[in-house]
């Protein structure tokens, strides 16, 4: 597929994983960086890029702009870096091109971009590589030593082997062990002990005793054990880091949402692009159709329909006139508005919600992960055992200090939590990969643990139980010809009802002379006759007005008017999913900001007996807190910006891929598609993952019960230590991989 081919197919992701975005174009001018050699660079967050086709589409499309030197999209993080020379193209042209291709672009704060470089991940990778290199090479020599122990290898050759091993292992262990030494040191400084303390101790003692043995022409050296230990532990550490890095990225994309720009009127009436954080109360801003209000404000002039779903969660737009209040984040749909800012960006609604979300996230970070809980039990036991071995051999066994220390170190090495360090991350990586294949994005490893503990799920209504968008309900009553005519008008409008008609009709022509009449409908000329599509009274039909939000009329010339009826439909498998969750012992409940009557209707059809209407974002959090105080661990499923604080506060949270960015950022899981079944799948896989982690812990405990007596009584040679360590790690990973093939989706 060449770039020119991909440009001809429709906008948005060619794989169909993500619908084309239809948000407006922001001017990223305030975020352009000037490089030393005169080139300009811009970093943008791209929303909606999901596949390889997106890469060629975006990079190819941008490379065609005059002056663009380089465009590179990072598909994993969604960051696009564009650099260009000269003044031929403006930053806005770049944003416009991306928008024309069907993606949404948000400027990325360059300071945040600097931090983005994953230094910690690279550090762990380098340590892992060094430990792996040392392990392989030292093992090569150690195997020769073990094979020759019964006399085939002379003591001179053995000593040379030990010396070479030492020269490789000592610098390698000091280099690769730094992540553990650092963490152990900072724990000890605070008077605590974590898992890294016995690890560091084992590495240092193993190296020390090996040097001593080599100097004294001893038979055994533990150089291989020290680096092998570090290699296995670093694998676990790195897997864990990758899972955490993903969660951090999600939080940063929330910050990117705030880095929006706006068009401000200068004193002499000209327009300038400013960053949202530079807007002061009293500034006059232009809000074109497709723009989101950057700060809280009031409408100064103009009338337009505004999508306030970010605030209320409801999809029906509201009509705004001069004097009405706009909250930051609401989307202007139909015509230009001039607004006056009443608050700074940091005092506006999105910032308030961000603070609520942060509070919720802090609550979540108090969650103690299974692996850490296991470590808290494990560390004192290991230390006590090693000390008891040392003292036991010295005083009861009457051995020399050398033998006593050797055996104590063997206890530390053999109990060192290789299997324990891999037990949770390996399972979580496999579970995450499996859920990804089923269309569920998992943002952190402990999210799996938290979801598995849940015994109640709280659902939002619009956009979660329902699809959240209006669909043409009486398609069968409307002739194809009328539908196509209405669609030729509707294509000119951003109104949700017009969009629904276009969705039903598919691709087609635009009528002549079309214009949008904000708050009323669309008007144009079809086959030489004037036609209108919109509100009943405007089209010239008498209607009771009760259904104004869910109906529209089409009338051409003197023909009879045709009624178009719209409804938001339930996701097809909502009732089944809720019933299945019920049978797994999970109670479902619905919280909505909508009025009681429609809420009751949806609750009945979804098979929910517990529901509450008229809930504000704070009410939702209060309900979750009330549940928690009763000892119920509740997960939240929601999509609106108004749900985001509740998503962050819940024990675990999910949001559909159509949700507001902030909600996707606050949720632990994001699921794609029109079905609700992924909620069930995520729950089941989480439960399975938890079971595997616990199995792994049980295995690690069993392994220790068998191995510790051997070590305590001095039977552990370096060969046995190496076999035990690698054997237990392989078993733990194999157990994790079982999750890949199990049938959780049945």
């Amino acid at each position, binding site marked *: *597929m060449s770039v020119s081919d991909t440009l001809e197919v429709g906008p948005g992701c060619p794989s169909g994983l993500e619908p084309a975005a239809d948000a407006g174009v922001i001017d990223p001018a305030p975020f352009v960086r000037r490089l030393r050699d005169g080139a300009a660079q811009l970093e943008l967050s791209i929303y909606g890029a999901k596949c390889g086709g997106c890469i060629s589409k975006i990079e190819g499309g941008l490379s065609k702009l005059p002056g663009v030197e380089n465009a590179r999209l990072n598909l994993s*993080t969604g960051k696009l870096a564009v650099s260009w020379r000269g003044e031929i193209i403006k930053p806005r042209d770049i944003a416009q091109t991306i928008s024309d291709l069907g993606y949404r672009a948000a400027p990325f704060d360059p300071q945040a971009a600097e931090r983005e470089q994953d230094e910690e991940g690279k550090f762990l990778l380098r340590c892992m590589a060094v430990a792996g290199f040392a392990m392989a090479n030292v093992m090569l020599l150690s195997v020769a030593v073990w094979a020759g122990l019964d006399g085939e290898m002379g003591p001179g050759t053995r000593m040379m082997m030990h010396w070479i091993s030492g020269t490789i292992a000592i610098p390698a262990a000091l280099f690769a062990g730094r992540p553990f030494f650092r963490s152990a040191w900072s724990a000890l400084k605070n008077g605590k002990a974590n898992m890294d303390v016995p690890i560091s101790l084992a590495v240092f003692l193993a190296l020390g005793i090996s040097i001593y043995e080599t100097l004294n022409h001893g038979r055994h050296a533990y150089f291989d054990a020290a680096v092998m230990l570090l290699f296995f532990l670093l694998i676990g550490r790195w897997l864990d880091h990758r899972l955490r890095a993903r969660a951090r990225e999600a939080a940063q994309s929330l910050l990117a949402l705030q880095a929006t720009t706006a068009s401000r009127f200068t004193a002499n009436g000209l327009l300038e692009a400013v960053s949202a954080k530079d807007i002061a109360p009293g500034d006059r801003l232009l809000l074109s159709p497709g723009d989101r209000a950057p700060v809280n404000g009031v409408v100064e002039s103009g009338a337009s329909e505004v999508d306030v779903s970010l605030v209320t969660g409801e999809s029906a737009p509201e009509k705004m006139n001069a004097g009405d209040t706009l909250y930051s984040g609401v989307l202007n749909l139909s015509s230009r508005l001039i607004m006056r800012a009443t608050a700074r960006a940091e005092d506006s609604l999105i910032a308030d919600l961000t603070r609520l979300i942060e509070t919720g996230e802090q609550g979540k970070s108090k969650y103690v992960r299974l692996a850490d809980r296991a470590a808290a039990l494990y560390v004192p036991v290991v230390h006590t055992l090693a000390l008891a071995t040392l003292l036991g051999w010295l005083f009861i066994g009457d051995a020399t200090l050398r033998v006593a220390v050797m055996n104590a170190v063997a206890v530390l090495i053999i109990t060192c939590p290789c299997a324990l360090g891999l037990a949770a991350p390996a399972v979580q990586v496999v579970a995450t990969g499996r859920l990804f294949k089923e269309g569920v994005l998992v943002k952190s490893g402990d999210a799996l643990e938290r979801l598995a503990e849940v015994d109640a799920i709280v659902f939002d209504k619009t956009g979660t139980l329902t699809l959240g968008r209006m669909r043409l309900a009486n398609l069968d009553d409307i002739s194809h010809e009328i539908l196509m005519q209405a669609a030729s008008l509707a294509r000119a409008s951003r109104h949700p009802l017009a969009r629904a008609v276009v969705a039903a009709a598919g691709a087609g022509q635009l009528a002549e002379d079309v214009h949008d009449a904000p708050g009323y409908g669309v008007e144009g000329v079809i086959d030489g006759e004037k036609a209108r599509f919109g509100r009943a009274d405007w089209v010239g039909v008498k209607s009771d007005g009760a259904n104004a939000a869910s109906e529209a009329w089409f009338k051409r010339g003197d023909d009879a008017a045709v009624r178009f009826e719209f409804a938001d439909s339930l996701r097809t498998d909502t009732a089944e999913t809720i019933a299945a969750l019920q049978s797994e012992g999970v109670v479902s409940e619905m919280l909505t900001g909508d009025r009681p009557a429609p809420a009751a209707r949806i609750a009945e059809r979804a098979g929910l007996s517990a529901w509450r209407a008229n809930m504000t974002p704070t009410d939702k959090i209060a309900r979750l807190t009330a549940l928690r105080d009763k000892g119920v661990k509740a997960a939240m499923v929601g999509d609106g910006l108004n749900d985001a604080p509740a998503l962050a506060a819940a024990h675990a949270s999910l949001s559909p891929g159509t949700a507001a960015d902030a909600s996707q950022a606050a949720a632990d899981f994001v699921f794609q598609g029109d079905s609700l079944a992924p909620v069930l799948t995520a729950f089941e896989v989480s439960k399975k993952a938890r079971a595997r982690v616990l199995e792994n812990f049980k295995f690690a405990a069993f392994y220790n019960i068998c191995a510790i007596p051997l070590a305590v009584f001095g039977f552990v040679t370096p060969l046995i230590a190496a076999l035990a360590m690698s054997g237990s790690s392989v078993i733990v990973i194999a157990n994790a991989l079982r999750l890949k093939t199990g049938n959780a989706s049945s």
Partner: protein
Amino acid sequence: MSALLYLIPIALFMGGLGLAAFIWTVKSGQYDDMEGAARRILLDDDEDEDPPLEHR
């Protein structure tokens, strides 16, 4: 046994070469976009008269 005197250095040198290569790949950011790299291999840039430049 004297073969060890040159075989061990050769083994270590070759291992070290692999290590250096791996560290270079980490440093040059080749693990920054694992997903993108997997997809890019399937793109036919050669059909395009003005392929996007690779800057890394």
